[in-house]
C-alpha cells in the first residue's frame, strides 16, 4: 500500500480518536458555558418525570406531531432518525455495551439476521432518507426555511458517513487476517472492538467520517441529539401544569 495512505489510515485509527474525544469534550463544555452564560429563566415548569418521558417518547422518538399532520414527511423523518438510532445502537455492540447473545432467544436464523442483515437494510434506509431530507431542504430553501451553513454540513456528514459505512459492509473484506482490531478512543474505557475486519479503505474512511460527526456535534445542529430531550421534557411538564 502507498506509504502515505498507510500512514494516514494509521493516524485516523490510532491518533485521531484521542483528538475526537478531546474536541468533543471541549466543544460540549463551550456549548454548556454558552447556555449557562445566558440569564436564568423566570418561569420554568416544575419538572414532571412521567410527563417528560412521555413527551420525549411521543414527540422526539415517534414524531407524534408530524404524524398528526403529514404522514409522508413523518415517514421520512422517522426513517431517518429510526435508522440512525438503530445504527448507533448497533455500533454499541462494538463498544461491548451489549452482545449478540441478546438475540439468541429469537433462534439462530433471526439472531443472525438481526446482527448481519438488518444493519445493511438500515444503512440503505439511512442513505435514502438523508438524501431525501437534503432534497427537501433544497426545495424548501428560501420558501419555507433559511438554512444555516451547518444545516447542510450536518446532513452531508451523515450522508457521507452512511455511504462509506455501507460500502464497508457491501464490499468484500481485504484478504489479510487480523485476529483482533480495535479503535481506542479512551484506553480501557471507550474502545471499538471489531470481530471482522471489513473492506479496508471503506472502513478507514468510515472511521474518519464518524469521527468528524462526533467532532462536529457540539458546534452544529447535531447538538439537538443532546439538547433535544430537554425541550420536550419541559413541554410535557408545562402541559401537566396547564392540565392539557
Amino acid at each position, binding site marked *: 500500500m502507498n506509504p502515505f495512505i498507510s500512514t494516514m489510515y494509521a493516524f485516523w485509527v490510532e491518533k485521531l480518536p484521542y483528538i475526537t474525544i478531546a474536541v468533543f469534550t471541549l466543544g460540549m463544555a463551550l456549548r454548556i458555558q454558552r447556555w449557562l452564560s*445566558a*440569564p436564568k429563566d423566570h*418561569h420554568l415548569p416544575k419538572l414532571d418525570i412521567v410527563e417528560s418521558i412521555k413527551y420525549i417518547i411521543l414527540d422526539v422518538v415517534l414524531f407524534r406531531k*408530524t404524524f398528526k399532520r403529514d404522514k409522508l414527511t413523518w415517514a421520512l423523518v422517522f426513517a431517518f432518525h429510526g435508522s440512525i438510532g438503530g445504527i448507533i445502537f448497533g455500533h454499541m455492540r462494538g463498544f461491548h455495551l451489549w452482545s449478540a447473545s441478546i438475540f439468541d432467544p429469537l433462534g439462530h436464523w433471526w439472531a443472525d439476521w438481526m446482527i448481519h442483515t438488518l444493519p445493511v437494510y438500515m444503512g440503505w434506509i439511512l442513505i435514502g432518507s438523508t438524501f431525501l431530507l437534503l432534497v427537501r431542504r433544497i426545495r*424548501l430553501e428560501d420558501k419555507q426555511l433559511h*438554512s444555516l451553513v451547518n444545516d447542510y454540513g450536518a446532513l452531508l456528514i451523515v450522508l457521507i458517513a452512511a455511504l462509506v459505512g455501507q460500502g464497508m459492509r457491501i464490499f468484500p473484506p481485504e484478504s489479510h487476517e487480523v485476529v483482533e482490531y480495535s479503535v481506542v478512543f479512551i484506553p480501557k474505557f471507550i474502545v471499538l472492538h471489531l470481530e471482522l475486519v471489513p473492506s479496508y479503505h471503506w472502513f478507514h474512511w468510515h472511521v474518519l467520517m464518524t469521527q468528524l460527526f462526533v467532532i462536529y456535534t457540539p458546534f452544529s445542529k447535531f447538538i439537538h441529539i443532546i*439538547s433535544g430531550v430537554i425541550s420536550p421534557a419541559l413541554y*410535557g411538564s408545562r402541559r401537566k401544569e396547564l392540565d*392539557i
Partner: protein
Amino acid sequence: MTSNIQENIKAALGQFSRKQLMELDTCSHCALCTEMCPAYNSSKDSLHAPGVRTSKAVKLYDKKFSLWSKIFGEKEITQKEMDDLAESAYHCTLCGRCRESCPFGFETHELWIRIREIVEAMGTTPENVARLSNMLDENMNPYGQDPDTRLDWSFYVDIDEVPEEDEADIAYFIGCTTAYKGANHEVAFSISKILESLDVSWTVLGEDEWCCGAPSMMAGKVEEAKKYAEHNVKMLEDRKVKKVITGCAGCFRSFKFEYPALLGRKPNFEIQHSVEFLRDQLAEGKLDLEKGDETIIYHDPCELGRLSGIIKEPREALSYLTSNQIEFDENGIDSKCCGGGGLLQGVNNDMRLDIVKIKLEEALAKNADILVSACPACKLAFVDGAREHEIELEIRDIHEIVAKRFGVLEE
C-alpha cells in the same frame, strides 16, 4: 450605524434566557412548523415562517456572542438584518401553533416576544406598534380613548349601574378591547348581567382600570408592561378582592402568567377567566337557564386554550346552553388562530382579515348557526372578517349566549 445602537442590540440579544438560547441552538430549521403558521400560510413569504425567525435570531446572536466573535471580533448587524427580523417578528399572531408542530415543543410564544424586545432595541419596531406606546402612556389603553370613557359601554346597553365599590369579593376586569370596541360592549354587558344575577359582591375598577400590559409585552416593552401590572394589582389589592374575573383571554393570560414574573410575586387574589367562572356557576346550578338548540361552534382563543390550558371549561359551559355543539376540525390545543392576536392588526390588517376568513368559512361549511368564542380580540376579528368577506354568520361571545337565555340580549 452608531456603536451605541450595536451595544443596545447586543444587550438585548444577551437577554435570551438559557432555555431560549438552547432552543435557538437546537432548532434544526426543519420547517415542520411552517405549514402550521397562520401568517406564513397567508403570505407564503419565507420571512414570516417561524423557523426562519430562529435562523435570523441565532445568526445575529452569533455575530455578537459566538466563540468566533470572541476570538476574531464582533460583527456589525446590518440594517437589512434588522429590518428582516422586524418584518418576521411582527408578521406573527403569537398564537403558539408553531409550538404544537415543533418536535421539541419550543415555547415559541415567549421566544417571539423576546425577539420583539430585540427589535425594539434595534429601533425597527413598526410605526403603528411604536405609536401604541404613546397612546398607552397618555390614556392607559391601546386605543387612544379618554380613560374616563372606560365605562361608557354601559350607556349603550340596558344596564342600570355598574358597581364601583371600595371593597368587594369579586372584581370584573373588563379589558380595553371589551370596554372600547363597540363590537364587544355587549360582552361587558353580558358578564355584568351574569354577576348581577348572582348573590355576590362585585365591582369594576372604572377609571382605575388600566391596560393589562399585554400590548406592551407584545411590543417587546417589558418594563412598560410592569408599570401596568403594578398599578392594576395595587388597585385590586386595595379593594381587597378575593377573585378577579376577566372575559379577555389576553388580560387573563397577563394576570395569570405574566404578572407573577413581572412583579416577582403572585398577586393576593385568584384570577379566573369568566368562562371558568360561568362554568362553575352553571355546574353548581346557580344559573338556571333553558337549553337552546342552535348549532354552536366554539373557537378556542389561542391565549385561552393553547397558551393557558382553558379548553374543556368553555365546552362544559356550552353544554348547559345548547344541545347542539359542534367542533372545528382542528380544535383545543390544535385550534387554528383567528388572526386577531399579536398586534397583527396594527401591522398588516389585510393578513389578519385573510387569516380569519379560513375559520369563518369552516364554520359556515359546518352549518353552524352561531360562532362562539371567549375573547374580545377574537370576536372583533370575526366581526371585521365577516363584514370584509360578506359572510352571514352570527358571531357571539359565550357570555352573550347566557344573556340571550336571560332574555336581556336581542336574538
